[in-house]
């Protein structure tokens, strides 16, 4: 591979430049992968040295500290209280008491059950007083897993707090040694609306994210390694267990178990994934370009009633999608308005299979999505188009560029640069665009070849709607849903990683500030 210097590169013809760039990109892939591993390795090394540093620091704090510090290693907050920082000390102490109490009363149990996820299932017991049978639920795998994870979170939080406690003792000693005063409880409280205001502001949001996003995600990742499903969740059995990588094996298995017309699980997954990617691609770019086109049409000089056109389009954003999508889905139905209209006009004699034929359905979905998406894109692009300096166009016109050249040489590059990150999020967002697919088609038409797979897989099903379907009904194979979820994450993460490295506008967040 010949490498050109910058000036040599400029001399190349257009086609050669393109080829050169492409080949450079592919040549750089091994290097990039290597770089990734190196970065990973450095991260691990950094982590190790950090842990070592912390350990050394803790040790030296203990050795060099006074007796107040030493006691604090066991009784958190003691040092703070002894040095007059009552509020902080009490908080530390309270946390320690709560933690120990929790671990003794409940945490220990959950933690000890975690490896087995419970042994004794529900049983019928006889109540002599009431003379009736009642159900004893005994171990409950779901709760064990949930509270087990929670307990681990709690332990991590405790270790961190303990570390902070130790560090504070060290800092307090240093400050006192310099002859300065420690912050009082009042100072601490005051700083919560001032220099530590960010902690106050973020406490609630981060707690929400931790409990309602991080915890569930960790839980669901773990579920992918169990056999948790509808049959293991309820009255007859609430026990499930670890199964290792079995679920991933099922999902990515190419073997066909029964009959010739049924395809393997992996083939189904591949089919859904490829349609998901295809859909995301078309949904993103049709909207993007058509939206930009409409925006340019509305903003063109000499076009009147700009506000009216815009408002008509924006109206569609206001109306809840479930109404518009469900309605549109019925419009395209066999006995819907569109077929009715076409037939009454005599253009067709038989209803068009908008939702019945796989290809028709896919195209109709994409077209309907354009209808949904253009107004939004029109708004976004209008704002950006107005930001393009007019003198660029004036200068281009003087240089002799026609409107098409102005578009490809000025408008488009500018737009792509500015909206690069948006396109990426829009792409990944479309991959997970549950609403449009589920409300329009519900995944239909059904793919008969995929009947062995969980849920009813259809030709317009995205991974996300498939995931949803898997969790519905009596079978509710949550473990497979988790696997699909994890794979969705992997795909999204990979795409984002690649694109992030290519996009120029994403690297410098602060440049805009």
């Amino acid at each position, binding site marked *: 591979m010949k490498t050109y210097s910058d000036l040599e590169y400029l001399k190349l013809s257009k086609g050669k430049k393109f080829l050169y760039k492409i080949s450079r990109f592919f040549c750089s892939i091994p290097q990039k992968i290597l770089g990734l591993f190196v970065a990973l390795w450095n991260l691990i090394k950094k982590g190790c040295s950090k842990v070592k540093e912390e350990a050394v620091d803790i040790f030296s704090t203990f050795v060099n500290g006074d007796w107040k510090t030493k006691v604090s290693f066991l009784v958190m907050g003691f040092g703070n209280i002894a040095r007059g920082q009552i509020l902080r000390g009490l908080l530390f102490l309270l946390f320690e008491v709560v933690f120990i109490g929790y671990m003794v009363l409940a945490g220990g149990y959950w933690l000890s059950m975690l490896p087995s996820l419970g042994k004794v299932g529900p049983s019928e017991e006889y109540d002599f007083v009431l003379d009736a049978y009642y159900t004893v639920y005994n171990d409950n795998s779901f709760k064990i897993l949930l509270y087990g994870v929670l307990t681990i979170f709690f332990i991590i939080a405790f270790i961190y707090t303990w570390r902070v406690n130790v560090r504070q003792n060290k800092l307090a000693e240093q400050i006192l040694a310099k002859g300065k005063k420690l912050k009082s409880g009042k100072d601490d409280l005051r700083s919560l609306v001032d220099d530590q205001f960010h902690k106050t502001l973020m406490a609630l949001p981060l707690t929400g994210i931790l409990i309602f996003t991080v915890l569930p995600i960790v839980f669901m990742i773990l579920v992918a390694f169990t056999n948790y499903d509808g049959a293991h969740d309820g009255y007859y059995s609430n026990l499930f267990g670890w199964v290792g990588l079995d679920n991933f094996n099922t999902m990515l298995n190419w073997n066909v178990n029964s009959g010739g017309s049924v395809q393997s699980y992996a083939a189904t997954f591949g089919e859904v994934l490829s349609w998901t990617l295809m859909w995301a691609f078309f949904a993103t770019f049709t909207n993007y370009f058509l939206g930009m086109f409409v925006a340019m049409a509305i903003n063109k000089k000499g076009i009147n009633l700009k506000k009216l056109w815009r408002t008509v389009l924006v109206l569609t954003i206001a109306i809840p999608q479930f109404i518009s999508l469900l309605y*549109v889905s019925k419009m395209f139905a066999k006995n819907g308005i569109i077929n009715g209209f076409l037939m009454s006009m005599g253009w067709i004699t038989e209803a068009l299979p908008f939702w019945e034929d796989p290809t028709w359905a896919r195209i109709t979905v994409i077209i309907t999505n354009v209808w949904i998406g253009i107004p939004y894109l029109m708004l976004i692009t209008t704002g950006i188009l107005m930001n393009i300096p007019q003198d660029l166009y004036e200068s281009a016109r003087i240089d002799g560029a026609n409107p098409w050249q102005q578009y490809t040489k000025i408008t488009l590059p500018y737009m792509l640069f500015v909206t690069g990150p948006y396109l990426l999020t829009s792409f990944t967002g479309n991959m997970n665009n549950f609403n449009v697919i589920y409300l329009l088609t519900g995944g239909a038409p059904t793919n008969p070849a995929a009947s062995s797979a969980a849920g009813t897989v259809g030709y317009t099903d995205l991974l996300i709607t498939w995931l949803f379907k898997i969790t519905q009904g009596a079978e509710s194979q949550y473990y497979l849903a988790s696997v699909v979820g994890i794979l969705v994450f992997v795909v999204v993460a990979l795409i984002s990683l690649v694109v992030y490295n290519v996009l120029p506008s994403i690297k410098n967040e602060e440049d805009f500030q």
Partner: protein
Amino acid sequence: MSEKNITNPMKRHMGLKTSRAIGNTAIYALLICISIIWLVPFVCIVLQSFRVELKGPVGYVLPKQWGLDNYKALFQTDFPRWYANTFIAALVTAVLQTIIVLCMSYTLSRFRFKMRKPLMRFMLILGMFPGMLTMIILYRVLKDLGMTQANAVPGLILVYIASSGMGYYVSKGFFDTIPKSLDEAARVDGATRFQVLKKIILPLSKPIVIYTILTAFMGPWGDYVFAQYISFGTSAGMNVAVGMYRWLNKDQIAASYTMFCAGGVLVAIPVTVLFMCLQKYYVEGVTGGAVKG
């Protein structure tokens, strides 16, 4: 177009003018077409909501017999209940989510603390997991807490607002455009960080506050999937989307299609009115958000 006519300035002028007129006419035609395509479904919904003669889907648009029967019929169903559920959930969510989002985005825009970048990266990664996945467990937990089925509304609100801190992007982009020197000037003038937020930043952030409220309201108003999970087939706990979705099932559509249209009109009206009034702010938020990315 007209470069060839450069020798005759008069002719060139005429050429420019006529070609522009042709172009504009084409654009007007296009815009009218677009407007029709975009409006037709909504006009159809409204028209069909007044249809009396047949309750199922039909192949024609104009009702043969007009009347308010469908609207009356709505009140024989659980629709008012669903409407109330949706409204309460949306309203509470709008308020709480706005507060959370603003806290988060203001912090990430203005404070430089050690964990800032890792935190943002972490949230980015979290966002790559399909949110639906978490529903399975949240449903179970909420069920244990008694916040599902008939009591779905508080559970729904909790689900809607819990992770809203992750939606800080757009408003952070807006805050980033407010010069930092304003904060600094205020701090030198004797304001605490809290006072800076209250007296300087918030008064300047009206567009983004309204945008956040608007989107926070519209999310729950049209949500289907979370509400479907949490109401779990109990009519009293449904929101409009879940309730009305069932009317279009194969076995119900023949009897309740026009009722769906009537319900749709009632659901759409308040948001549309709200939206039209606040359109300016919405546009500002959308545009700013995308540019900042």
